[in-house]
């Protein structure tokens, strides 16, 4: 029972209704911006922007231009780095799919921001009592049996919400039935150990020039949480070993000193 959203970018018309729907549902402030050469604006995700459409104008092999629109938002990793590093457990992967955040726990250390391989968590830099902000996968809507706000709003069905295994099946069905239209990969299927945000694209992420903006293709299939867990699993042993060694050595030296002292007494 893990939900996901399949983003079939080949259907996206870049209308940004989802971008606004997200702001509307989450009650996020509009930013002051200047003209963006690509039309994507604001240029970065931020605490006011959980979802933005990236515009990519690229040349096709036949020399014509093509235009692609890609929604960028939290990947809702199956084993999220953000949740694994949070010292207070403010971030948490729900079994239903969303990686949710607890406003009341967060201490604002921003380790999640450092750790997320997709550069997703953002900080309320403008506030004196700042919190972390990112796409919530509309967990509170899901709890009411509703689809995420962006999904409901999308006119073209670019955003498909459902059970993750079914969506993967559907994604491969699409690739199979229209091999010319799709790049044969579902981004997020295995990436970083699998994510609840899945992408279909017309060409590779490299060709779309997206790998520098958070669509990492160098993560392999490694679940991102294991880096921290691997370390933490060793900690108790190190602690015991170091402690034991110290006590041992101390008594060794002490015993030696006693022996020496006795020898002196005797001698």
């Amino acid at each position, binding site marked *: 029972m893990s939900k996901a959203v399949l983003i079939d970018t080949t259907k996206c*018309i870049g*209308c*940004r*209704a989802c971008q*606004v729907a997200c702001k509307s549902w989450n009650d996020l402030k509009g930013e002051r*911006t200047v003209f963006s*050469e690509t039309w994507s604006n604001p240029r970065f995700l931020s605490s006011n922007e959980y979802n933005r459409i990236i515009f990519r104008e690229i040349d096709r092999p036949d020399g014509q*231009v093509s235009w692609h629109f890609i929604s960028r938002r939290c990947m809702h990793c199956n084993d999220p780095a953000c949740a694994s590093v949070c010292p207070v457990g403010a971030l948490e992967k729900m079994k239903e799919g969303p990686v949710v955040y607890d406003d009341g726990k967060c201490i604002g250390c921003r380790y999640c921001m450092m750790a997320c391989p997709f550069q997703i968590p953002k900080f309320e830099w403008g506030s004196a009592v700042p919190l972390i902000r990112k796409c919530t996968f509309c967990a509170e809507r899901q709890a009411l049996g509703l689809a995420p706000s962006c999904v409901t709003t999308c*006119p073209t069905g670019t955003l498909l919400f459902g059970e993750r295994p079914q969506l993967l099946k559907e994604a491969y069905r699409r690739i199979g039935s229209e091999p010319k239209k799709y790049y044969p990969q579902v981004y997020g299927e295995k990436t970083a150990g699998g994510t609840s945000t899945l992408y279909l694209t017309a060409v590779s992420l490299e060709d779309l020039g997206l790998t520098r903006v958070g669509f990492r293709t160098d993560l392999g299939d490694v679940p991102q949480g294991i880096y921290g867990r691997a370390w933490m699993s060793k900690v108790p042993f190190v602690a015991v070993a170091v402690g034991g060694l110290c006590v041992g050595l101390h008594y060794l030296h002490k015993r030696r000193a006693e022996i020496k002292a006795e020898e002196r007494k005797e001698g």
Partner: protein
Amino acid sequence: MTNHWNDLANSDCLMIIGCNPAENHPISFKWITKAQEKGAKLIVADPRFTRSASKADLYVRLRPGTDVALMGGLINYVLQNNLFHKDYVVNYTNAAFLVNKDFTFNDGLFSGYQNDKRAYNPATWDYEVDKDGKPATDPTLSNPRCVFQLMKAHYARYTPEMVVNTTGVPMETFMKMAALYGATGQPGKSGSILYAMGGTQHSTGVQIIRGYSVLQQLLGNMGMPGGGINALRGENNVQGSTDMALLFHIVPGYMAIPNEANHPALKDYLEKETPKAGYWSNKPKFFVSLLKAFWGDAAKKGNDFAYDYLPKIGKGFQGAGYSWIPLFEAMGAGTIKGMLVWGMNPAVSSANLNQTYAALDKLEWLAAFDLWETDTSVFWKRPGADPKKNKTEVFLFPAADSLEKEGSASNSGRWLQWRYQAVKPHGDAQSDLWYANRLGLELKKLYQGDPKAAFPDPIVNLNWNYGDDADVHLVAKEVNGYTVADKKQVVNFTALKDDGSTACGNWIYSGSYPGPDKKNNLMARRDKKDPSGLGLYANWSWAWPVNRRIIYNRCSADPAGQPWNKDKALVRWDQAANAWKNNDVPDFGWINPQTKAHITPDVSAKAPFIMLPEGKSRLFVPKGLCKDGPFPEHYEALECPFHNPVSKQQSNPAVKIWKSNFDKLAEVCDPRFPIIATTFRVTEHWQAGAMTRNLTWQSEMMPEMFVEISPTLAKAKGIKAGDWVKVSSIRGEVLARANVTRRVAPFCCGAQGFQNTVEMVALPWHFGFAGYITGGPDARKNYACNQLAPQVGDANTMIPEYKVFLVNVEKA
């Protein structure tokens, strides 16, 4: 739209031309995407590579203003290669009609042109009649004087080479397009044409749309599910506002407004305006019922149902009527002294803004009803103007927005959808109905008490009983119509009478509210059942006329009543049952209302277009109904960097040219303005911008005025992406950020041997000088694109030529 939004999903091939629905009608892409998923092909023809184009199977980059040439080429291709739908063309169009022998066409001019008047005498643009006075026909289509042969000859000039030279579309692309769309001519296949302002905002706008529709008729796409000619309307209820005659030349229900000279009395009007054949022969019932709705008991047989109360139109300002341009010219000339701007923002949206500002400056008073303080309501504070010198008194009335009031909105698909009030109006805001009602009541009071009033009766006797706080249901019921005696709602317009016993505010809306209770309000229906699977949703809201979802639907079946495509049956004659089986409300006589006997298909096959007296759709438009010619012919825009390759006639010979000091035009191939400019909308903004430039969410996405510039032009002018540039026309200039993009490109066009490469730039027109964002950082600048656009209009509609004009571009 002859069809409707959901129906786009039924198409085999969609041609998006002269519109950009991905950006301006995003919801349409729900249905377009569905069609694509089912295998439909998508063609997008646009000078710019748009978000719609990004989804196209074939993108056709055509030079702005050359749609007729492109259509001409397609028509020629379809005719030469026999791709047209023969049975359809013979039976359902006027292809077989013989044309008056004096009708000619010569190098760009049709017969009857009067140079001095810049207008045609259309006497020769008519059918030959036989001895019974009926149009003569040749069903073999071989008579050289039949519409088909004349048309074939007319478009033989639009060879592929000519198309390529005129439109700038590469030959290979044109051939692909022709083959792809031509394939919809197969019986059973349907192709849909979607258009909007890219098609209409030209001095040849009507000819362009006619070009689209001639192609559709030839391919048998009219009346078909997934076919039709679909105008994607603009403002959310603009369909409703044209239906309700928020236009100067008609009264509600698309009946002409009476004319001083031609229609002095009701009898003249009814005689001259009522055709002998076709459904419009019922016009007297609709018109008299309308007069009864207006003046109630004061409209009596004895006084021609108060026909004299109805204002008659003269020739309008300088003979041009009272559409947008003449209104502003009249204001500029000082003949109009006050204005109600009701939900519009002409200080940004109007063409040739410097003329507009001068005109506004001359007003004695201006009352703006709007959600915001718009650029128009602060026009006297605009950059460069001195507020102290302005004498206009401005009133600002806060209007309730669409969520703050109840009522209907008609969409492009002719669906009247009832909406409820979600929240109470904020602050002092009131609904438009409230203001209109108060205005009506106050005027009545003023006229009643004023002995000096020259002609108080039309106002004093106005049937105006909606209460102090107008009840929108009362209005809706009046629009539906009722029998005068018992005030009972009529079932639909078939119950209307021309003897004064019925009243109806708009005959085409008759049937939308056929009973006294709110549950009779069919516009409020929300039934999601769709038994046909064709997306007709017969019980969702209500469509005019009589809940018909696809008009001309007789044409979806062959003369014997069998659907061209069995899987897409709107109506079907069931041979065995001797009856019609219908999924949609038939657009033809199918049942005898008295006997309830079904009428055999051969009857309706003779006249499937019931609104037209000849009963057939018009490949050739008779009688000067199109002022600039019966066949679409390519002319260049008024401002153009090319000599017309198709004929000697450079531009539309029938357009009105204005002569005020502000109405300057660049010359043909003007060296000072060597670049074509076109204007467009973006998803992120709404129109003149008051609605979106005041919203932070919208503003952050598209914060500044920009201009799309090709990389070649940018290089030639030393412009870098993001630079501020100055775009200037002979009328004005505007600053914009350079959006250097391959989505626009230069065009290589011109008559054989005289080709030339000309750059095109494109500007959004949403920015201005007032609001949360204006379009740039400088408060002393006006970022409205329409400072550039010319004040010239189409010969028929007078819509300004926003889509082609000449500019120069320089680094700011």
